[in-house]
């Protein structure tokens, strides 16, 4: 029933093996854990090199304008233009051409435009076409196609100097002067003219 010397030796041997195993694992563990300081100091720094790209916008052509005439005033209108990236343009150049496509001096109100229309006033008699070009600082878009030719009416004939014209009056004699040779006289003047009648 009692343990033999061999049994005692076996038990001691197993205990020693277990202790050795534990010690080995502890040492291995300590050795591995001791690497942690390396972890803290190890930082994978990385670089990247190459070329990036930046791209400039463009100013497109403005759509063909529309024109309308009221007496001697010409209204020019067009659709708003934006740069290729969506940035609004800062202004427009309006041009007027005669029938021979010779550029004329644009008159007031259309010389420098930041909106989408302008009214050129007191336009001389003639057949004119208009175009529009968008701008942004020193950048210019392509000029629009020309709007259809628009004949402006001749200016109204002035009253003869020294005479007054009054509706409902009649003329029975005398001489009228100061009218252009081709003028059509639709009213008559009875003199002496009483402007208060």
């Amino acid at each position, binding site marked *: 029933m009692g343990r033999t010397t061999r049994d005692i030796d076996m038990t001691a041997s197993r205990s020693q093996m277990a202790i050795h195993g534990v010690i080995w694992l502890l040492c291995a*563990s300590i050795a591995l854990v001791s*690497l*942690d300081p390396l972890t803290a100091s190890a930082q994978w720094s990385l670089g990247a090199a190459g070329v*990036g790209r*930046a*791209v400039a*916008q463009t*100013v497109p052509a403005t759509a063909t304008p529309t024109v309308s005439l009221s007496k001697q005033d010409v209204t020019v209108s067009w659709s708003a233009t934006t740069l290729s990236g969506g940035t609004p343009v800062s202004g427009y150049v309006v041009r007027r051409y005669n029938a021979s496509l010779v550029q004329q001096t644009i008159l007031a109100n259309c010389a420098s435009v930041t909106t989408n229309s302008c009214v050129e006033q007191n336009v001389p008699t003639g057949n004119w076409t208009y175009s529009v070009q968008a701008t942004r600082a020193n950048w210019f878009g392509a000029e629009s196609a020309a709007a259809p030719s628009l004949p402006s009416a001749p200016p109204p004939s002035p009253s003869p100097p020294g005479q007054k014209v009054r509706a409902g009056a009649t003329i029975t004699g005398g001489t009228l002067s100061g009218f252009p040779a081709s003028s059509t006289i639709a009213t008559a003047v009875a003199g002496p003219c009483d402007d208060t009648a």
Partner: protein
Amino acid sequence: MFSSKKAIIGSVLATGVVAGAGLAWANWSGNATGTGNAKARTAATVTITAATGADDLYPGAQGDIDFTLSNNNPYPVTFTEWTATTIVTSPNAAGCPSSNVTVNDTGSISIPVAAGASNLAASIDDVVTMLYTAPDACQGQTFAITLALTGAQTAS
């Protein structure tokens, strides 16, 4: 005797867990310092390739630098700094010299790039400026900008 075995088994298990944790961490850290891990990897340089982003420059305005990134490393990276140097105009360098454009020298960013990412689109916003006096010939021009990024590996 029974309690001694339990203690031994417990110690072994605990030690194994600690050792396992140590192994997982030590594998990576050994690479970083190059001190004896047979599985060390070499960090590959991430590639920057010029890309055409939105056209946003015009006289007096700021624009972006656009590019793509390809990460050949098996781990993610986050770039945190950038440096720009040379600017080259194309295709009309004569009509629109590169002097019409300036770029900030350096700055901070945060661009994460996944492990093995290929041609990831990226940009650095509003760091390129076109002079207000830029000539008409600068319309539609492309400006190539030499770029360097620095960053570090990030956790997966």
